[in-house]
């Protein structure tokens, strides 16, 4: 369970997140929707320790994440798939995957986890020893998600996975991910500008507007609310 309470972030004097409270139960996906500049990316960057909040708390199970370094937060079980996938393009596909769990003690399970990532996204296996820079957009997204999974996270933060992907490919990736979420009891926070695709896989959804939570409900009900869709989601 990932629980965010009263989280406030400011860049200089500008408030980017204003008392955001939300929770992501185990085995479910919570979508965070909103326009550009609503604070979506700031939210995930704060959870993973790249941005220091002014106040508020982020709890993963019994651990307070606020105040810890990004590397410590990753080691506590937060996998962050950053916007624009964030693969290390100078390394090979296999090296990128191995990076995911280098800090873990259990070397044997590390190998199993890498193998599982290849099973999850078979196109990666074929290209394991090529430079990650030669991958297509979809393959990069698979690599980034697969790499996060190698660390066996308990919470997964996905920042705009739909960016630059064809709808069919995205659906395929998200379908594989959904199965894992249930199986591994993952708490997934899915940041999306593309509300339609996010609501189709999410269990809950939160609408951010100018750093505030405007709306919070089940994904189904949000998708069915026409007035809301027009006002905040644009479809």
């Amino acid at each position, binding site marked *: 369970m990932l629980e965010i309470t009263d989280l406030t972030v400011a860049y200089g004097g500008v408030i980017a997140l204003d008392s955001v409270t939300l929770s992501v139960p185990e085995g479910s996906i919570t979508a965070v929707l909103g326009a550009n500049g609503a604070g979506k990316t700031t939210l995930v960057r704060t959870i*993973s320790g*790249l941005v220091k909040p002014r106040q508020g708390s982020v709890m993963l199970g019994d651990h307070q994440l606020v105040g810890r*370094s*990004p*590397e410590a937060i*990753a*080691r506590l079980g937060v996998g*962050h798939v*950053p916007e624009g996938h*964030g*693969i*290390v*393009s*100078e*390394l090979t596909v296999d*090296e990128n995957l*191995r*990076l*995911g769990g*280098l*800090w873990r003690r259990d070397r044997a399970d590390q190998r199993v986890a890498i193998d599982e990532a290849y099973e999850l996204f078979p196109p990666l296996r074929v290209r394991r020893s090529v430079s990650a*820079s030669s991958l297509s957009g979809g393959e990069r997204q698979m690599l980034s998600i697969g*790499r996060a999974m190698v*660390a066996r996270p308990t919470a997964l933060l996905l920042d705009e996975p739909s960016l630059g992907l064809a709808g069919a490919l995205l659906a395929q990736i998200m379908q594989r991910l959904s199965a894992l979420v249930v199986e591994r009891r993952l708490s997934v926070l899915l940041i999306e500008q593309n509300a339609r695709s996010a609501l189709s896989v999410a269990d809950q959804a939160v609408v951010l507007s100018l750093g505030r939570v405007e709306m919070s409900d089940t994904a189904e009900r949000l998708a069915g609310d026409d007035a809301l869709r027009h006002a905040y989601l644009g479809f």
Partner: protein
Amino acid sequence: MRLFVIYTLDGITNGMVYAAIALALVMIWRATRIINYAQGAMAMFTTYIALTVIRHGAPYWMGFVVALAAGMVIGAVTERVLVRPVESRPPLNAVILSLGVLILLEAIAPMLFGGQTQSFPVPVSNIDIVVGTTSLPVSPFALFTVGAVLVAMLLLFLVFQRTTLGLRMRAAAFNPEIARLLGIRVGRMLTLGWGLAALLGALAGMLAAPSVYLYPSNMDEVLVFGFTGAIIGGLESPVGAVAGAVGVGLALSYVSGYVGADLAPLGGFVILIVVLMLRPQGLFSFGRQRQV
């Protein structure tokens, strides 16, 4: 013809020393985007430490090991204490800092070790090998120099390419933010990278000192030649840096042999200026931009 062979072998030998410095500069550039102008002064300092150890009766090899270890420590401490605070600042801060370290080390050295020029011992003879009645244009120390740098390069290559520690260091250098999100302690990797680079520099210092002698600014020219080699190699590429540095060694050796020994240092500067004017991205880079 015999002269040409002599100049060529000399050039390669000196070039390998420049290559060690060039490689150290490239390692630090790749990890922290800083040109470490103090690389030569650090090597001077560790060579003085080695000389002190040897003067106290320890064998050459003890001094050798102590110098490399001292290099590792000086490099790591410099990164952790001095470089870390300026890493997130504009690049000019780091440039000035590394120049400051250079001046500081060259000022402290005469206080601790005396300012006069001192000779430095060799582990094996630096007189040309004689087989029967013919003298070969190469000395055991020249062979040792080339061999030591090659072994150091091979070990570094294996560490970076074949170990998980090396993978961590590469990830930290290529993309620090992503590395941190994957649980890699980037700060430690940078400290280690500076330590390894200074270790390589210390090796260059030990190999250069018998011929350039030991005094507080004895590595200044070696640094310029190594820097030239690294620039020719495009600063990003370890292979390019080594090739560039050996090229500089050869060019200087030919200038010194055919034109005049006094002109060799000038030749080094001319090469550097010409390369910076015509191809500042280096001969070995093909316009590949780093992806963010």
